[in-house]
C-alpha cells in the first residue's frame, strides 16, 4: 500500500523504536502532525519553544543512551532549534532532528518561513540531509539514525519539504544501511593496545583520565573492572562523571579548571597518563606546555581527530572504549607483572601516599557555620537525601560546578549537563526528557536564577505532562560565574552580572500550577528538601536564597598549570 511522506515519516519513527518526539507544529509540518494525530505508537511532547524540544530530546538521550528525536517547522522553528542542536553536537549526543521545509519548488525563492536549514545547521551537526523525493525518505531516516548513534555520536538533521510529506510511495523500512564513506573503527590496533598495557604495567605514577566517551560507549563496567584491577587513581571530566563510582577510594573526583586539588596535582606529577574517551578540552588541559609534563600519554578515542588535536600523545589508539578496555583487561590478566589481585593499590603505595597527602588538603571544604545558605550545603543535602540515586540535570554557571563537585555520581547516565557549549537554559527542558524516560525516578534540576529564566516557559510543558521535576534554584542574585571572574580579573567591576528585577519564583511556579518554596535559612534547607522529595507527583520549584559572595574553588586561572590552583581563601596554601 502506498503511504504519504508524512505517514512514512511517522512509521519510520515507530519502526526505529522511538517512544517520544519533542516538537512544535507549524505550516511546513502540518501533514506530519496530522499523521502523528492518527496513531498512538509514537508519542509527541509539545514544548513551549523549539530550544526546549532539542534540550528535552537531548536529556532523554543522555539519560538512556538512545537517540532523542525532535520535530520542528521550517524557518523560525528550525532556527530556534539551533542552540539545542549545537549543544548536542559539542557533547556528542545522538539526536535526530526533523525540520520542515517549504515546498521543493519554492526552495531558494525566499518563500514564507524559508531558511536554508541544511546550510545553517551544517557546522553544528554530525551530518544533515535534504530529502527531495518521497522515495528517498525512509532510507534517509534510517541513515540519520545510523549516523547519529554509531561511531562518535551526534545530532543529524533531516530537512523535509512540505510537498515531500504529501507525495505517496510504497513503504518499507530498511533493516540495515551502510554508507560507503562511513566506517567507524571499533576494535583498537592490537599492537598499540599491547604497547599501552606495557606502559601501564611499568608505570610508577599512573593516572587514568576518563571522559564522556566512556558513557557514550556504555563501558562503565569494563572501565570499573580495569581500574580496580590496576589499583590506579582515576579522575573524570565533567562529561565523564558516573562512569566510575565517585565514592570509590580510587576516585579523585573531577579534574580541570574547577577540579579537585588531588586530581590536578596527580595529573601534573603522573608518569603515565591513560586518557580514555576524553578529548583534552581546554578547560581540562589549561596551558598545553604545562600539561602533564612528565607523562607518557596513551589516548583511546573513536574519533581520530580527537587524538593529538591539542596535546601530542605517545600511544594513540583509535577504537571504541568498551572494545579497547576489554582487550586491555585480557592482556593485563595474562601478564605476570599484573598487580596483586587482593591489594592492587599496594604496588603503588608511594604514589598513593602522595595522593592522600594532596587529598588531606580537603579542597572542597566550605564554611559550614555561615548564617547564609551555602550552595554547597544544599547540594550535599540533596545528595544525602536522594542517596546519590537521583538524575541530576544542570544549567550553566557556579551551580553547575558545585553540583559536579558535591553530588557523587556512582552510576553513568545520571549527570546531565551541557559541558562543551555551556548552554544556559539547558537544565529544565533536559530534565523533562529525563523524567519522561524515567517516570518513577527522582529528577532534580540544579539551576541558577539567571539560567532558569532562559527556558522558564517549559514550566508549562511540565504541567501539561505532569512531570514532577524538583527544581533546585541556587539564587545568588548574580550571574555568579560571571561575577566570580569579574571579582578575580576585573577588580570587582560587576558589569551587567547582577540579576535585577527577579520574579517571585514561588508565585511564578504557582501560576503554572506547580508548588513553589522559598528557603532563606540554612536550618530550613533539609526540611524543605525532604518535603519537596515527598511530593512525588508534583513539580516543586525550590528557590534557595544563597550567599551571594560564594565562589567556586579550586580554580585554575587562565594561563596557569594544574599545579597552580587557587584554593578557597581558608584553604590557600602558602
Amino acid at each position, binding site marked *: 500500500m502506498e503511504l504519504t511522506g508524512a505517514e512514512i515519516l511517522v512509521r519510520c519513527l515507530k519502526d526505529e523504536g522511538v517512544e517520544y518526539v519533542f516538537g512544535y507544529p507549524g505550516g511546513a509540518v502540518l501533514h506530519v502532525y496530522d499523521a502523528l494525530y492518527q496513531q498512538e505508537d509514537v508519542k509527541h511532547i509539545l514544548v513551549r519553544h523549539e530550544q526546549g524540544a532539542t534540550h528535552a530530546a537531548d536529556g532523554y538521550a543522555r539519560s538512556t543512551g538512545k537517540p532523542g528525536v525532535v520535530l520542528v517547522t521550517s524557518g523560525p522553528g528550525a532556527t530556534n532549534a539551533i542552540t539545542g542542536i549545537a549543544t548536542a553536537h559539542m557533547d556528542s549526543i545522538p539526536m535526530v532532528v526533523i525540520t520542515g521545509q517549504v515546498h521543493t519548488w519554492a526552495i531558494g525563492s525566499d518563500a514564507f518561513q524559508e531558511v536554508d536549514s*541544511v*546550510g545553517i545547521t*551544517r*557546522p553544528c551537526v*554530525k*551530518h544533515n540531509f*535534504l530529502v527531495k523525493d518521497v522515495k528517498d525518505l525512509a532510507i534517509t531516516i534510517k541513515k540519520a539514525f545510523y*549516523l547519529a548513534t554509531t561511531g562518535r555520536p551526534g545530532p543529524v538533521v533531516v530537512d523535509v519539504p512540505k510537498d515531500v510529506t504529501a507525495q505517496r510511495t510504497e513503504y518499507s523500512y530498511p533493516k540495515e544501511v551502510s*554508507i*560507503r*564513506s*562511513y566506517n567507524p573503527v571499533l576494535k583498537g590496533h592490537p599492537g598499540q593496545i599491547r604497547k599501552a598495557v606495557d606502559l601501564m604495567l611499568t608505570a610508577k605514577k599512573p593516572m587514568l583520565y576518563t571522559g564522556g566517551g566512556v558513557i557514550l560507549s556504555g563501558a562503565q563496567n569494563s572501565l570499573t573492572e580495569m581500574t580496580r584491577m590496576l589499583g590506579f587513581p582515576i579522575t573524570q571530566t565533567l562529561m565523564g562523571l558516573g562512569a566510575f563510582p565517585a565514592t570509590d577510594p580510587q576516585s579523585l573526583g573531577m579534574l580541570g579548571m574547577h577540579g579537585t586539588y588531588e586530581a590536578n596535582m596527580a595529573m601534573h606529577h603522573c608518569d603515565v597518563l591513560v586518557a580514555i574517551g576524553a578529548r583534552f578540552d581546554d578547560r581540562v588541559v589549561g596551558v598545553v606546555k604545562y600539561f602533564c609534563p612528565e607523562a607518557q600519554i596513551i589516548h583511546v578515542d573513536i*574519533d*581520530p*581527530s580527537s587524538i*593529538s*588535536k591539542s596535546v*601530542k600523545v605517545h600511544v594513540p589508539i583509535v577504537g571504541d572504549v568498551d572494545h579497547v578496555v576489554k582487550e586491555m583487561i585480557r592482556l593485563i590478566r595474562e601478564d605476570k607483572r599484573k598487580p596483586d589481585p587482593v591489594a592492587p593499590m599496594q604496588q603503588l603505595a608511594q604514589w598513593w601516599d602522595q595522593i592522600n597527602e594532596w587529598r588531606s588538603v580537603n579542597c572542597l571544604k566550605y564554611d559550614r557555620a555561615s548564617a547564609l545558605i551555602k550552595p554547597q550545603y544544599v547540594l550535599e543535602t540533596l545528595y544525602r537525601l536522594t542517596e546519590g540515586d537521583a538524575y541530576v540535570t544542570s544549567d550553566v554557571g557556579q551551580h553547575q560546578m558545585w553540583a559536579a563537585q558535591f553530588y557523587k555520581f556512582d552510576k553513568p547516565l545520571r549527570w546531565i549537563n551541557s559541558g562543551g557549549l555551556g548552554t544556559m537554559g539547558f537544565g529544565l527542558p533536559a530534565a523533562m526528557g529525563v523524567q519522561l524516560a524515567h517516570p518513577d525516578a527522582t529528577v532534580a534540576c540544579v539551576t541558577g536564577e539567571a539560567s532558569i529564566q532562559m527556558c522558564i516557559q517549559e514550566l508549562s510543558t511540565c504541567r501539561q505532562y505532569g512531570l514532577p521535576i524538583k527544581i533546585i534554584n541556587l539564587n545568588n542574585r548574580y550571574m555568579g560565574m560571571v561575577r566570580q571572574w569579574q571579582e578575580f580579573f576585573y577588580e570587582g567591576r560587576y558589569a551587567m552580572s547582577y540579576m535585577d528585577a527577579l520574579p517571585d519564583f514561588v508565585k511564578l511556579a504557582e501560576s503554572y500550577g506547580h508548588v513553589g518554596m522559598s528557603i532563606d535559612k540554612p536550618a530550613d534547607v533539609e526540611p524543605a528538601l525532604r518535603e519537596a522529595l515527598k511530593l512525588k507527583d508534583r513539580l516543586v520549584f525550590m528557590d534557595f536564597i544563597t550567599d551571594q559572595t560564594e565562589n567556586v574553588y579550586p580554580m585554575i586561572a587562565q594561563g596557569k598549570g594544574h599545579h597552580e590552583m587557587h584554593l578557597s581563601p581558608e584553604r590557600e596554601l602558602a
Partner: protein
Amino acid sequence: MRHIISILLENESGALSRVAGLFSARGYNIESLTVAATEDPSLSRMTLVTRGSEDVIEQITKQLNKLVDVVKLLDLTEGPHIEREMMLIKLKATSTARDELKRLVDIFRGHIIDVTSSTYTVELTGTGEKLDAFIQAVDSDDILETVRSGVSGIARGEKSLHV
C-alpha cells in the same frame, strides 16, 4: 609546508560546501581548490592545496575524513606525484610585440588559442611555478586578464586513488 590533498567526494549537492565550510570554520587556509565529476558519476574528485605545519595538516586530513561525504583522500605531497595547472591569459599584442610574444609562448610550450588585431589569448599548462614564471616573463602592463584553474594532481606510478 604546502600540501596537495586529493579527495574523492560523494557527488551530491552540498558536499563541496561541507569541505569549504570546514576550512573556514577551523581557520585552515585554501590556496586553490578544483572539483569535477569523475568517470563514476556518483563521485567527484577534488584537489585542494593548503599550507600548514605537520600538526595542522594532520588535523585537516582527519577532519576531512570525518566528513560523511568524503569517501577517500590522499595527501599527494607524501609521495612522488605530478601536479598541473592550466592558465588562460589574455595579452595585449600590438604589431611590434606580436612576434616576440609568440616566441615566448613557444618557449613555455603554450598555445595561442584566440587572436584579434590587438590581443592574443594563450593557453598554458604546467606546475604553478611555471605559470608564475610566464606571468613574470611578460610585461605586466600587457596582461589584460588571467584565469587559472587551480592545481590538479595525481600520484606517480601505480598508486591510484579510487574506490
